[in-house]
């Protein structure tokens, strides 16, 4: 019996295998004589249910072009291209339909239409084709992007397009990427035979260009037995050169990763450095305040989308003050309603705030549901830019700057404002401060509010790189405490140093021992460090500390 079931399973697997049976890759179809039907009608492929055929057709539209090619490709990328039962291709703009092949508007909506099928394969071909189009017809910026795209995704079928672009006069900025693209194509499978010289030259171009994509092309070429030996040799050595360059840069890269991780830790810990470090309140609900900040960001974004979609891109700048105010207010509420009754009893505070954190989590769960909420990353924060061999991701970079800014602001408040002065006075000698007429209660509330507000700011940053869910806070509370204690309680510089040390240290360990062991190792190191230096990296000195 069981054998029968086994057989069914095998059959199924077989079916699977058949479904994905090897089919000729697009590059080949382009060079080989195109399928009979397609020869007559370049659009025929698009009507096919098979991704392979669709991709092929798209490719050919990109290379060989056709009267309506551009319009059709644009329509396809916008999901506006439809196939009718009769095999007709139609573009839909709102409610009006046009015949894709001729561009002529059709009066009555075609019958039984379905959207042209898409998948990664088709999208890939589409991107190539559009790049080809842009290279010939686009504006300067579009042309440069297109050239870069073609260089990173070399496809010999595009060679004529690139050559045409090179032949026509073009601005200086375009030359390099075009050369790179051309070189990459010459070394890619299915490239026209150009002989060893040309290939070695191409290898040199790519070697000087460097980068992972160039490396990929060279690697493929070097592995290809049919290519001439010398050229492959050259490719090999080129790869070595590139790898060396990459290794050098990767050090800088690790540091960048470390610093960006450090700034996240710093942001998360800074609020705590105030409430815990300066006021000595063990606030276990700190993480939840960070979470509130993240949810405030979400709400800000949602409201903007609703009321002023145009401004959606600015939701983050708006979320910053919003989160600060919301969390600051929440903080003062907590201080007035709970913590002030517990001064001088830090451990009770710990327990009460722990209880509070449970309540806050559950409250958010009831309000927003237990699942994550989506916080969009505005366009100006998406993607990354190259700094030499260094990939700088925009969101991380922004968070670094943000962390720096917040740090600076907190310093100003503590060092330059009356409030800051009063805060330090109260924390150093409450009774004396009171005698000098400082309204300590008010100062306490404000200080805690400030710390909570900063936690909220951390929430804004975190919403860009992490889940926004009721559990968000839990993920940061332990690390935050560790940072503050490691740095030395009551010392913002210490917090900064600790955050960066943990960040860079963690990122330095990760490639060596893996993420998990790295974190464990780091924790152990911190424990040992604190046992050598019981008051952290930057201990506060003076008589007051002892008691």
């Amino acid at each position, binding site marked *: 019996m069981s054998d029968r079931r086994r057989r069914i399973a095998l059959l199924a697997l077989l079916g699977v295998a058949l479904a994905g049976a090897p089919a000729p890759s697009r590059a080949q179809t382009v060079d080989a004589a195109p399928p009979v039907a397609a020869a007559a009608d370049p659009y025929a492929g698009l009507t096919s249910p098979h991704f392979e055929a669709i991709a092929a057709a798209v490719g050919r539209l990109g290379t060989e072009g056709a009267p309506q090619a551009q319009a059709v490709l644009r329509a396809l990328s916008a999901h506006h291209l439809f196939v009718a039962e009769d095999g007709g291709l139609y573009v839909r703009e709102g409610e009006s339909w046009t015949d894709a092949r001729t561009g002529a508007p059709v009066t009555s909506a075609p019958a039984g239409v379905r959207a042209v099928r898409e998948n990664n394969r088709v999208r890939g071909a589409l991107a190539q084709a559009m790049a080809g189009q842009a290279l010939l017809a686009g504006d300067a910026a579009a042309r440069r992007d297109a050239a870069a795209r073609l260089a990173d995704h070399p496809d010999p079928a595009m060679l004529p397009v690139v050559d045409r672009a090179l032949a026509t006069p073009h601005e200086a900025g375009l030359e390099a990427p075009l050369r790179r693209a051309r070189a990459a194509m010459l070394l890619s499978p299915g490239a026209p035979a150009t002989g060893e010289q040309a290939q070695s030259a191409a290898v040199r171009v790519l070697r000087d260009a460097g980068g992972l994509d160039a490396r990929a092309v060279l690697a493929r070429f070097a592995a290809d037995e049919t290519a001439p030996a010398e050229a492959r040799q050259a490719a090999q050595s080129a790869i070595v050169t590139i790898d060396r360059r990459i290794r050098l840069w990767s050090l800088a890269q690790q540091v960048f990763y470390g610093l960006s991780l450090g700034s996240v830790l710093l942001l998360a810990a800074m609020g705590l450095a105030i409430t815990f470090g300066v006021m000595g309140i063990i606030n276990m609900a700190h993480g939840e305040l960070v979470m509130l900040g993240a949810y405030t960001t979400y709400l800000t974004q949602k409201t903007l989308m609703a009321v002023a979609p145009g401004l959606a891109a600015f939701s983050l700048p708006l979320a910053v003050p919003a989160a600060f105010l919301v969390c600051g207010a929440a903080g003062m509420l907590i201080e007035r309603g*709970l913590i002030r009754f517990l001064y001088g009893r830090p*451990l009770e505070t710990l*327990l009460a705030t722990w209880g509070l954190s449970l*309540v806050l989590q559950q409250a958010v769960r009831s309000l927003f549901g237990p699942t994550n909420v989506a916080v969009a990353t505005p366009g100006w924060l998406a993607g990354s830019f190259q700094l030499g061999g260094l990939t700088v991701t925009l969101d991380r970079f922004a968070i670094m700057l943000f962390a720096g800014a917040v740090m600076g602001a907190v310093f100003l408040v503590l060092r330059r404002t009356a409030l800051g002065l009063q805060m330090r006075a109260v924390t150093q000698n409450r009774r004396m401060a009171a005698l000098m007429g400082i309204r300590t209660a008010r100062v306490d509330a404000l200080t805690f509010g400030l710390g909570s507000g900063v936690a909220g700011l951390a929430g804004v940053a975190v919403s860009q790189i992490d889940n926004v869910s009721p559990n968000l806070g839990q993920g940061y509370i332990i690390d935050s405490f560790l940072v503050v*204690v490691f740095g030395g*309680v009551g010392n913002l510089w210490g917090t900064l140093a600790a955050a960066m040390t943990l960040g860079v240290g963690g990122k330095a360990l990760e490639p060596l021992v893996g993420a998990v062991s790295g974190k464990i190792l780091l924790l152990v190191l911190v*424990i040992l460090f*604190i046992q050598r230096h*019981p008051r952290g990296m930057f201990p506060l000195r003076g008589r007051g500390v002892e008691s």
Partner: protein
Amino acid sequence: MTGEFAFRGVVRTAAAVLVVAALLALGSLLPASNPLSVSPFVVTLAGKYLAYAMLALAVDLVWGFVGILTLGHAAFFALGGYAMGMYLVREIGARGVYGNPDLPDFMVFLSWKSLPWYWWGSDHVLVAAVLVLAVPGALAALFGWLAFRSRVGGVYLSIITQALTYALMLAFFQNGLGFGGNNGLTDFKDVLGFDLHQPGTRAGLLIISALVLAGAMLATRALVGGRFGRLLIAVRDAQSRTRFLGYRPDQVKLLVWVASALIAAVGGALYVLQVGIINPGEFAPANSIESVIWVAVGGRGTLSGAVIGAVLVNLGKTLFTAWLPELWLYGLGALFIATTLFLPQGLVGLGRHINRRRDEVTPEVTRPAGDAA
């Protein structure tokens, strides 16, 4: 005299624990038809509470009497649990899913070829018993020695205890470590030949837990009751003064710290026997914090309070997770806030407040300076 009342409380509570446990155990052996019969579910539950009570007792010993706020005591609890779990897993022997006499199931299906060396001897009950005490004890000794010698105190100590348990949690989550990763150790069959699923065995385990707990309570009472106990209070409240009297507070702390870790470890072992699963979740810092909260709810520095707190809070948890699945967290959170605000000395403190007599003092009356640092 110091805590006299509390200590009478200890005896009373220990007695109560024994009686209730005995009643439940007997009740579970009655036929279900009998009105006095107790569902085996309740028995295991009670056993679990008592195991937690051991943990709470351990926490109270260091927090209530030496002023060390530990946020990582669950680590010792869990380690004791794992040691016991290893033994129980080996007991399964060839009855596992793969019928492999040498390797636990989780190793078989992650294609381990042989037992890692640190599993050696875990199939002998005596070795297991030693491991239950030795491993957490050794860790506590090492950690404590380092910490107290270099005079790490206050929140610094609290935070690194938390870091310790957190690190252990991450470590045990790793499947590479050979303790079943996230799944931990489970699906135990029997202990010393007694089928763990038999009501008889369960009843027996409950009785044993009660006896061990009562024993631990009286032992700690002796520890903190006598002259040594006075020294503990002295160390808790004015550590440096004891130095100038010629005492070595670090030694005192270390002694109590290790003792406390051992109590927690035994608790963990009993826990695993009755709950039937141990996994890295037990190391979660949240668990340690909760154990502190049990003590706070019951009344810090009273021993009996720790036990009462642990049982009540967990009972509440059991009931509320069933009654109000959506809302129970509010209840729990509110409970902690309310206790700290209105019952600074916990339930025992409340009880004492009600029938307070003149000049009767407890360690809690004056705020330990040790806390603030």
